């Protein structure tokens, strides 16, 4: 049945080469843990991607209940945690995944660094990777405010103080992030929500696409 559906589509639009490009490629021996167990270090990039997928999915589902409003944000989070089936699990996935993804990203970065895999011709991909790291940190930072509890609030106050510490443009940067020169409130939450669910994910997708296209084009770096 599935094969028939696949064949029917493939007949018309010839998708086999498309997914071959995506899925079907040689895995060199030196990155295959079945040959050398120490090659598990090559998994961290893929694991980062895997956790990112979990983050995207759980985040999408969380927005079904969450509202970015200072009156209701905390209450909607409380509601989805206590009243909705599996709310604790879905929020838990997003909460813990946020930390795990940073850990995986860090391990991936360490592997690339210590193997010198960032060297010519892969310098560009290293730079894109650094940008991805920043985007991911920013996602963690903006997401931290959204439950609108005390911890979130004061963490954001601190963040804004740090932004204000930037020479010359500090005050502007703070207002830009905060939405108001002094009040950390309604506008801040709305802004952080928009940044967290629209702007940063968009940047993340673009950068990930570039990251993956480049690694496929240049191939994985050779054995040490």
């Amino acid at each position: 049945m599935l094969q028939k559906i696949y064949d029917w589509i493939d007949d018309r639009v010839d998708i086999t080469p498309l997914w071959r490009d995506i899925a079907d490629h040689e895995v060199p021996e030196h990155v295959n843990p079945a040959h050398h167990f120490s090659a598990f270090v090559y998994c961290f990039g893929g694991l980062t991607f895997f956790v990112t997928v979990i983050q995207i999915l759980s985040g999408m589902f969380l927005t079904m209940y969450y509202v970015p409003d200072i009156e209701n944000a905390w209450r909607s989070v409380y509601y989805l945690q206590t009243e909705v089936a599996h709310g604790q699990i879905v929020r838990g996935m997003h909460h813990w995944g946020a930390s795990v993804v940073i850990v995986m990203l860090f391990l991936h970065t360490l592997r690339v660094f210590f193997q010198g895999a960032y060297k010519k011709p892969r310098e560009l991909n290293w730079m894109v990777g650094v940008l991805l790291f920043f985007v991911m940190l920013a996602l963690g930072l903006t997401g931290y405010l959204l439950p609108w509890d005390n911890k979130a609030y004061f963490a954001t106050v601190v963040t804004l103080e740090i932004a204000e510490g930037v020479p010359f443009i500090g005050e502007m940067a703070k207002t830009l992030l905060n939405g108001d020169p002094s009040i950390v409130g309604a506008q801040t939450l709305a802004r952080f929500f928009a940044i967290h669910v629209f702007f940063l994910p968009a940047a993340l997708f673009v950068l990930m696409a570039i990251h993956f296209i480049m690694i496929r084009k240049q191939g994985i770096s050779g054995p040490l």
Partner: protein
Amino acid sequence: MSEKKQQVSRRQFLNYSLTGVGGFMAASMLAPMVRFAIDPVLQAAGGEDMHAVVDVSEITEEPQRFDWTVEQVDAWYTSDVTHSAWVYKDENDEIVALSPTCKHLGCAVNWAGNPDYPDQFFCPCHDGRYYKNGLNVPDTPPNAALDLFEFEVKDGTLYLGNVKENPVQEGGA
């Protein structure tokens, strides 16, 4: 090695196990999320309590609109909402409490809302009309009679509860 031809090739076996493990991982990831999303559909519907609406002595033969306020808990938001009913006493001195919700597309109907039909309920949205007992006037948009409230009278006060289907078949008045 048996004499028979191998039923499952190495490639097939790997394909199956990878698909299986991948499917299991995807399913365990998605199961809680899907259950989380469909939760509202699976929540048990709570029945409406009876609410005191009006003193029975105020009810006349002419349908009158009476409002009452209910504390509504809407997930994380609690508020007071106003419900209304059209209440009158019929020729047998029986209380009739009709829901104001039009059976066409849910607007609110008014008694004598159209000056041309002073003895009917009228819906301003699409000119739907109902006779006094709630039956929909043929050839107007609604295709069912206005719902009835379950009611009880305690100590001279009218209490209204859930709505139920209106059993009327013939238009009165």
